[in-house]
Each structure stands twice: as structure tokens, then as C-alpha cells.
């Protein structure tokens, strides 16, 4: 009895600093932001007072609904592109790479080792007018205007590139876990390569698909670096709006309202996803 009590207090002691840090600097700030989103600025001052001012939400959403929907559409397209691009790579790394496996995994994480902003700037060069990529795209009719930079295409391309590793790694992890004997059994039972893939491999890799899409989609929705560097005035995302409302326009209530809606919508999406897939999909087996 005394022993379990002591053990338990050890657990709380170990947990305390981290829990303190996350509660004070993550949970409480969210609460403060929620409060700020319902505040009204006292005219002429930079002070706010709390009034349950739900109109902040209505006004902010009305004003910025285009950027809001655009963020979700860009993120959804980029996530889908990531899935399509990442799957063959993850599949090859898991089943076919042999001694090249570590080198290919290195290639997947290598972009992380260069600074995010510099990577995005590199795409500015790749997608610039008169660059080979733009010229090829133009000649095959993909970029009729001859420009890629400062279009939605560039922003989506940037997001896709920047978050691709987040898709490859969980896909690889779940494909790697598949027992190869299951695939052999399918072959022994005269399943074609195609039906083995669609009926055995792909369903077994679903946890990876779910984790990968979440890990790509969540940061992609809130991203504003790609829109800032690669997009034009018509490609601004909700992240750009929140950032500029906070940092240059000092319209804290509207920015807080937008952040909160963004977070709420993402939470709902994540919740539905986890209901559908089980929490171990995101955290690996250990989270159960």
C-alpha cells in the first residue's frame, strides 16, 4: 500500500514539470485567446474588455471566409498529392529497397536539414518565369499564362513539397510492419499483384495513411510561409490573415476569433478521423 502510494507520487513528480509547462504555456494561452476573441476594444486605447462579443466571430468569418476556405482547399489538394507521391516511395523503401533502404530514408528526411524558409526560397527559383520547369509546364499547356510563381499552383506545390516527409514516414512505418507472409499467402492463393495490393497491402497500411494525412493536413492548413513566398495577393491563406491581424494591424479580437475557429475545425476533423481509425494510428501502437 505504502509502496504503491510512493510509486504513484513518483509518477506525479516525474510528470509535474512537463504538465506544468504545457498547461501554463499551451492550455491557459488557448483560454486567454478564447477570451480575447470575445472581447471588445475600448475605443482609442489598446485595452480590451470582455463582453461575450460573438460578433467578432461573425465579422471575422464574413470578412475572411475566402482565405479560410482557400486554406482548407489548398491543404486538402496538397495532402492528396502528398499521398499519391509518397505511397510508391514508402512502398519501395519498405519492401524493395534492400540495401538502399537507409539511403532512401535519409533522402526523405534530408529536406528537414535545410532551413524551411530557404527550402521554400529554392522553390521560388525553381518555379520562376523562364525556369526550365515553368517552360516545360507552359509548353505542355499546364501553365497557359507562362507564369507559375505567384499562382495557387505554386503555393500548393510548395506545401506539397514541404510536408511530403510527414506523409512518407508514417506510411513507411505502417508498411514496414506488414508481415510479408500475408502478402505471400495472397500470391499463393492466385491473387494478381493488383488485387494483392488493393485487398491486402493497402488496407493494412491504412493506419499509416490516416496518420500521414493528418500530419500533412494539420500544418498545411495553418501554413503561411508558402503563400507568403510563392503566392500572390490572391493566394493568401488564413495563416497570413491571422499573422497580419496580430502583428501589423493589432486587431487581436478578430485574429483570436479566426485562430479559434481554425483550431476548432481542425479538432473536429482530427476527432472524426481518429474515431474512424483509432488513436493508435497517430501515435503508433504505444498510445492504446
Amino acid at each position, binding site marked *: 500500500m505504502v509502496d504503491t502510494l510512493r510509486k504513484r507520487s513518483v509518477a506525479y513528480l516525474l510528470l509535474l514539470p512537463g504538465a506544468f*509547462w504545457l498547461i501554463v504555456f499551451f492550455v491557459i494561452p488557448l483560454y486567454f485567446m478564447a477570451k480575447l476573441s470575445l472581447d471588445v476594444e475600448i475605443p482609442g486605447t489598446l485595452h480590451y474588455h470582455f463582453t461575450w462579443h460573438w460578433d467578432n466571430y461573425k465579422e471575422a468569418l464574413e470578412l475572411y471566409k475566402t482565405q479560410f476556405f482557400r486554406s482548407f482547399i489548398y491543404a486538402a489538394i496538397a495532402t492528396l498529392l502528398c499521398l499519391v507521391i509518397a505511397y510508391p*516511395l514508402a512502398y519501395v523503401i519498405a519492401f*524493395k529497397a534492400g540495401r538502399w533502404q537507409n539511403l532512401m530514408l535519409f533522402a526523405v528526411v534530408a529536406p528537414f*536539414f*535545410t532551413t524551411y*524558409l530557404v527550402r521554400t526560397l529554392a522553390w521560388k527559383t525553381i518555379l520562376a518565369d523562364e525556369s526550365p520547369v515553368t517552360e516545360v509546364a507552359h509548353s505542355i499547356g499546364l501553365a497557359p499564362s507562362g507564369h507559375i510563381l505567384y499562382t495557387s499552383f505554386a503555393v500548393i506545390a510548395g506545401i506539397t513539397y514541404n510536408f511530403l516527409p510527414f506523409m512518407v514516414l508514417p506510411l513507411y512505418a505502417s508498411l514496414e510492419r506488414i508481415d510479408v507472409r500475408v502478402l505471400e499467402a495472397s500470391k499463393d492463393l492466385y491473387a494478381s499483384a493488383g488485387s494483392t495490393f488493393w485487398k491486402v497491402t493497402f488496407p493494412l497500411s491504412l493506419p499509416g495513411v490516416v496518420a500521414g494525412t493528418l500530419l500533412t493536413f494539420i500544418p498545411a492548413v495553418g*501554413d503561411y510561409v508558402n503563400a507568403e513566398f510563392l503566392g500572390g495577393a490572391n493566394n493568401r491563406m488564413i495563416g497570413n490573415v491571422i499573422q497580419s491581424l496580430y502583428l501589423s494591424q493589432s486587431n487581436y479580437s478578430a485574429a483570436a476569433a479566426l*485562430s*479559434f475557429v481554425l483550431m476548432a475545425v481542425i479538432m473536429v476533423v482530427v476527432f472524426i478521423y481518429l474515431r474512424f481509425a483509432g488513436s493508435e494510428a497517430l501515435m503508433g501502437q504505444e498510445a492504446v
Partner: protein
Amino acid sequence: MSATTDTPMVPNTPTPGRGSLSAETSAARAWRWLREHAVNIVAILVVIYLLIPIALIFVFSFNNPAGRYNFTWVGFTLKHWGHPFSDTELTKALLESIKLALLATLISTIIGTMMAIALVRHSFFGRRLANFLIVVPMATPEVVMGASLLSFFLILGTPSLGFETLLIAHVMFCISFVVVVVRSRLIGFDRSLEEAARDLGAGPFTTFRLVTFPLILPGIFGGAMLAFALSIDDFVISNFNAGSTVTFPLYIFGAAQRGIPVEVYVVAMILFFATVLAMGFATWQQRRAEKMTAIRPEQEESDIALPGIA
């Protein structure tokens, strides 16, 4: 194989048909080869796609642009690699980033490792809640975390935003990742090793110091590396909470509007190579730890074998 089965057929086949037949089979063979290797080819293309921007950054670190924008190729020069730290503003920002990342890594690794041990080794009231507290920050967009922390500092009326607020923010978003990495190491941990130490008379602290800690060290090291990488590369959250402090990513963002010195590309490549070296070191450490645990299975076998002999 197919060549030998084809040859006996040749005399029987009329000459006119022969050419078209072999042409067909070689086309079919090429097609089959392509189909069998299609997924490999796609994977290689994706690898190339992943590496192109890195190659471009490397190439453009040797560029000699006339103006302040390093976006189009002008000519080759080594001068920026000769003096990568000549831009004092850039160097200051880089040092600030390194200092911040080291401190944030140190704090978040200690705190995160403690949390991971508590979560894996102890069952207690509120465990699910603690798990939830760790997952949610990872599922929150950075812009929301940055904005909410700024709201917090503004409402509290913190005297000034700067290095301290940056440190608070960086530790906050690093903790969860450290917990996840260290926890996965702890879960794959053979607990009978600790029991053995205990049986041999080691107290809980000695057991931890001599058995548990060395075995989870690669996990801790991996978590620390991830924390360092996240911290040194963070732009979004820092942008909200930096005040007048300038980190490396913040410097790049500011410079992007006025023109980017080539030194930025040089420093990015130096960071790249440094990380590659650190990764190599981590892998080597991991292998060593695996060797350490690999001693066990043999002993287990002999344990099983003994009763059979007796």
C-alpha cells in the same frame, strides 16, 4: 531461360513471321520490365524530387549575383564560402538561434524524458488526460500556438517579448515530440534487464543509472535531436513571440523582402552538413545500443537449453 525455349522454335517458324514475332516479344519484355519496375522508377523520381531543392541551395551558395536577390544564376564564385559569417546581422541571428535551440533542447529533453518515463512505467489517475495534453499541441497548427501564446503574453502584460518568451515557446512545442520519441524507446524495452539488476542487489537509482538510462539513451538522443531541429528551424511561433530578437529563420524572412545574401544559402548548407554528421553519430549510437541488447537472446537460449540438459 526464355532464350533457350525460343531457339528450338526458330527452325519451325516460317522466316517472314520470325522477325515480327521476336520484335513483339522484346517489346512485350520491355513492357513487362517497365511494369515490374514502374514502382521503383516512380520512387527514384520522388527521391530526386525531394533532393532537387537541396541541390539547388548547394549550387546557389556558389552563385555570384549582381543585385541583392539570389534567385537567378549569374556566375560561380567561392567568395561566400570563404567568408560565410561576414554578414554581422546574419551571424548574430544564427548565434541567437543556436543558443535558443540548445537551451530549448536541454530543457525539453529533460522534462520530456521524465514525462515519458512516468507515462510508460507508472499507472496513475489522469494518465489519459496527460496523454491527451501531449498529443494536442502536436495536432495544433503552429499559427494558433503562436497567436495564443502572444495573446497570453499581451494579457499578462509581460514587460517585453524577447529571448525568454521565445525560449518558453520553443520548450512548449518541443516537449511533446521528445515524449513521443523517448516513449517509443521505453516501450520496446526489456524490463527483465532491470529486474536482473534489482535481483543482483542494485537499488532503484543504481538500476536506473547503470541499466535503464544507457539503454534508453539513443531514444533520449533522438528526442533531443528532433527538438533541436524543430527549434532551430521554427519560424511561425517565433515570429509571434520574438519581439525584437532575431533568430536565423526570422532573419531570412525579414531579408526576403530586401534581398537575400548568398551567405544565407551557405549557412543553410553548413547547417545541413552538420545535421547529417549528427545523424550519422546518432545511428552509430543506436547500433551500439542494439549490440548491447543483442547479447541477451543468446543467454536466453542457454537458459532454455539448460533444463533440457539437466
